[in-house]
């Protein structure tokens, strides 16, 4: 399985002055992903949030976290301003947050395909990458413990399971896999 957080960091570091596109499932998770990137990137990158393409381009030596209020408009603005990112050469990327099913991705596909090539593979959907194969993971849990996650959690919640580091790891995994 590809690690979501490592993929996110990899996309940002791959092309220092380039464009990174982060796909977000919804507005709540968009905020979570912005916070996640702020917590991951070096302090020296001086990451800042903006809704505005001009602000993002002007700060060529800072990491711009571009969070559109109008996704289509921002994609088209970026398409029209790409030349301005060449001189002075950017030393930090622009990180563009687009809703997975929003107008931004539609505009990328239909009106601004060159933006997609600018991002050149630096587009990542971390929430999708983090999705597990639930049946496979439950079978793996069962094979290693001889119990379903629900059975294991009964003993854990009754405090009849030893509080070891290995069991804390299993508890977290069982809660991830628990049927609700």
């Amino acid at each position, binding site marked *: 399985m590809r690690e979501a957080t490592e993929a996110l960091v990899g996309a940002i570091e791959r092309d220092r002055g380039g464009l990174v596109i982060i796909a977000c499932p919804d507005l709540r998770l968009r905020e979570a992903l912005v916070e996640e990137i702020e917590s991951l990137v070096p302090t020296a990158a001086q990451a800042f949030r903006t809704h505005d393409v001009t602000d993002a381009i002007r700060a060529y030596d800072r990491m711009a976290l571009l969070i559109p209020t109008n996704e289509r408009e921002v994609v088209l603005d970026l398409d029209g301003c790409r030349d301005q990112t060449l001189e002075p050469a950017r030393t930090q990327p622009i990180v563009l947050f687009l809703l997975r099913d929003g107008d931004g991705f539609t505009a990328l596909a239909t009106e601004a395909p060159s933006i997609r090539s600018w991002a050149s593979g630096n587009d990542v959907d971390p929430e999708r990458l983090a999705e597990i194969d639930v049946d496979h993971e439950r079978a793996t849990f069962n094979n290693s413990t001889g119990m379903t996650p629900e059975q294991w959690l009964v003993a854990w919640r009754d405090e009849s399971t*030893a509080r070891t580091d290995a069991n804390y790891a299993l508890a977290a995994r069982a809660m991830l896999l628990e049927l609700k």
Partner: protein
Amino acid sequence: MKEWLGLYRQHGELRVDGRSAVSEIRQVLKHIGESRGSIFAPHIASRLQQLNNKRNGNQEFRFADEHGEPLLLKNHPDWHETGHRRIHLDEVRLHIYVVVNRRDNIQEVNLMVEGKRRDTEGTLAIAVHLPDDQITEKADGDRQGIGACGHAAFHCHVGPTLDALPKLRVPLPPIRPARALEWMLSQVVPAYEPALWRDVKAALKAPLTSA
């Protein structure tokens, strides 16, 4: 009972904004990773890995290497109280597990640092727990212990192991999990003290609004 009930409620309020709580933990790891002579590599915050279960909406965050194993702290300095005797700890590992549910509430937080003492050849474990606390079919739900005083929802353990007797659970104030991680690391590496007395003193002197 009133104050214990109040503390229980305050601990419950810590569970909101689970994803933000995870980012706050990453910020602590990043800050330490960027400090001189750090026990972590600079990009260590990215090792807090995420797994999503699309069916139940739960998310697991686990601090681990590429094989899923707890990370060994590098360049770990001697544990010591300033001006007093030092304790060598070997094979120091940091464990972080956070489970966040569909409503973005923290279901469980487990933080632990453990190592081997060179002086006694024993072990030392410091842990912070905010256990699972959901109302289920049981009368007391899945709350642990018999009450909110002896087993406060957000508590810490310090001892040779987590199961060693006496198994003491010390209630923690209602601080965010990231602050509890800072506390835990400051116990092992005093240089990571996030609230130096000189800064506290300066803040106390400053006008209330900027403190």
